[in-house]
């Protein structure tokens, strides 16, 4: 096949490619004979320093993609390459912000953030010092001694963000991190994320089901179809200027144009996918 016709050029081995998923399929073995195929024929690359948002309906295998990139599950077919090297075992260069509660409930906010450096071999004092610094960056200095259950949902996400970023991962994986938060808190968290990301541009793979959030945050929006055996059905570049403010960028006419364009394509695909599953049933 002529490489020039590929819709998204994938350059395996390139130094600029932080993540490269090539023709990846993930099948979970279950009671069925063939198992359950979550995602199929996924080609996706994230350049170093690029912010990519994946949008798709619930249950389309977005989280599965992230888990494969994190090395928590191995692909059934195809490959995962991290900075040009095939991924074996856990992805040590990635930080993962989970959708569900992932903080250690028996540790205070400070201890939760300090655990990364501590595990990596820093002295307790040094780890605490750095953790204090990171808690300040996410605006939680006053809450260092609180346990997770004493924090609000938004505050817990801030602790989670600090816990991941303190390890300075080259790739940041985020699985609907602000999903359970209310609209205002989501915007505040989105701006906080963009501020932190602007200071030190990491490759980000951000999963969400909210198209507006995806456009507001990302450099590129990738749309996935409905599962099972979900595929990537399109990708759009977001050329809105940075630095952005989440609440202001939504008023930009370019934002609306892009939103309309993506949504019309997404709607067609969703309806098509829906008809297919209806026909199969």
């Amino acid at each position, binding site marked *: 096949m002529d490489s020039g016709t590929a819709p998204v050029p994938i350059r395996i081995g390139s130094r600029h490619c932080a993540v490269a998923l090539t023709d990846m399929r993930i099948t979970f073995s279950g009671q069925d004979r063939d198992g359950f195929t979550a995602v199929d024929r996924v080609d996706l690359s994230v350049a170093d320093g690029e912010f990519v948002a994946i949008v798709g309906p619930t249950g389309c295998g977005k989280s599965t993609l992230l888990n494969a990139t994190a090395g*928590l599950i191995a692909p059934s077919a195809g490959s995962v390459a991290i900075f040009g090297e095939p991924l074996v075992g856990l992805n040590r260069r990635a930080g993962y912000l989970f959708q569900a*509660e992932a*903080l*250690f409930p*028996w540790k205070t906010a400070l201890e939760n953030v300090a655990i990364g450096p501590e*595990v990596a071999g820093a002295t307790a004092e040094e780890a605490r010092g750095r953790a204090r610094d990171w808690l300040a960056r996410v605006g939680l200095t006053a809450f260092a001694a609180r346990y997770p*259950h004493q*924090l609000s949902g938004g505050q817990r996400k801030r602790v989670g963000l600090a816990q991941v970023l303190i390890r300075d991962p080259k790739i940041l994986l985020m699985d609907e991190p602000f999903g359970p938060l209310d609209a205002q808190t989501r915007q505040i968290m989105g701006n906080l994320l963009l501020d932190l990301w602007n200071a030190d541009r990491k490759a980000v793979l951000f999963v969400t089901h909210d198209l507006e959030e995806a456009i507001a945050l990302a450099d590129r929006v990738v749309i996935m179809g409905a599962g099972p055996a979900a595929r990537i059905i399109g990708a759009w570049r977001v050329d809105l200027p940075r630095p952005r403010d989440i609440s202001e960028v939504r008023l930009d006419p370019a934002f609306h144009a892009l939103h309309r364009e993506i949504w019309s394509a997404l709607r067609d695909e969703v309806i098509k996918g829906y008809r297919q599953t209806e026909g199969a049933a």
Partner: protein
Amino acid sequence: MKRARLLFFQILVAVVLIALWHVGSTVKVPAGFLSQKAFFFLDPFFFSTPFAVFERTWRDFATGVIWFHLGITLLETLLAFVIGAAGGVLIGFWFARQHVVAAVFDPYVKMANALPRVVLAPIFALWLGLGIWSKVALGVTLVFFIVFFNVYQGVKEVSPTVLANARMLGMSERQLMRHVYWPSALSWMFSSLHTAVGFALVGAVVGEYLGSAAGLGYRIHQAEGVFDVTGVFSGMLVLAIFVIIIDTCVTAIENRLMVWRPTSASSQT
């Protein structure tokens, strides 16, 4: 105010019950009223009287005879708890991490747990003599299973997300043990602590009751042997006070170590 009211009603229950007991066991119903002979509702021979029981208890403490027996029972309880809990934690951890081992031993664990422990008491007395160790052994068989099942559950039911997060943060197997499995198992162990301590005491007292030369169970057994109802009730009173003190200590330890655990009282901000 609410707490004061609660305490008031709690004390009221005790006062009413003791008053009924007192009236029933000291006021004689005159002859010809309900029966031919004069009688007590609660015959003091069978029920003793509250004042006799309090007086006996007071005397036991004042003369100091009871301290020795309390000390023996306390020692047995503590030993049974410590040994049983340590064994439960270790085996629970081991089984939870080694699925094959757990599967192989599963029917035997269930069998051993279903066995009424009282039938073991004479065996332990035979093996370990009439000293404290046969009582400790009985307590251990009770405590072990409670702690074991809780730790096993605790290690197995660590949230998969928390576990994945820990691994993504770079934890090795040993660090997972220390930062994830151990605190999780500990929280489950503490949730069973009140029950475990209670059972340690039951093991000690039942063991003493069935054959010993010292301890609260021995005192109660001796009193029963000579139809000394006052002595029996006095023994039970001391036992009850003892249990409440131990339980208060356990609650204090729990509050100290489990600060991170959400309680219904704490509100989310």
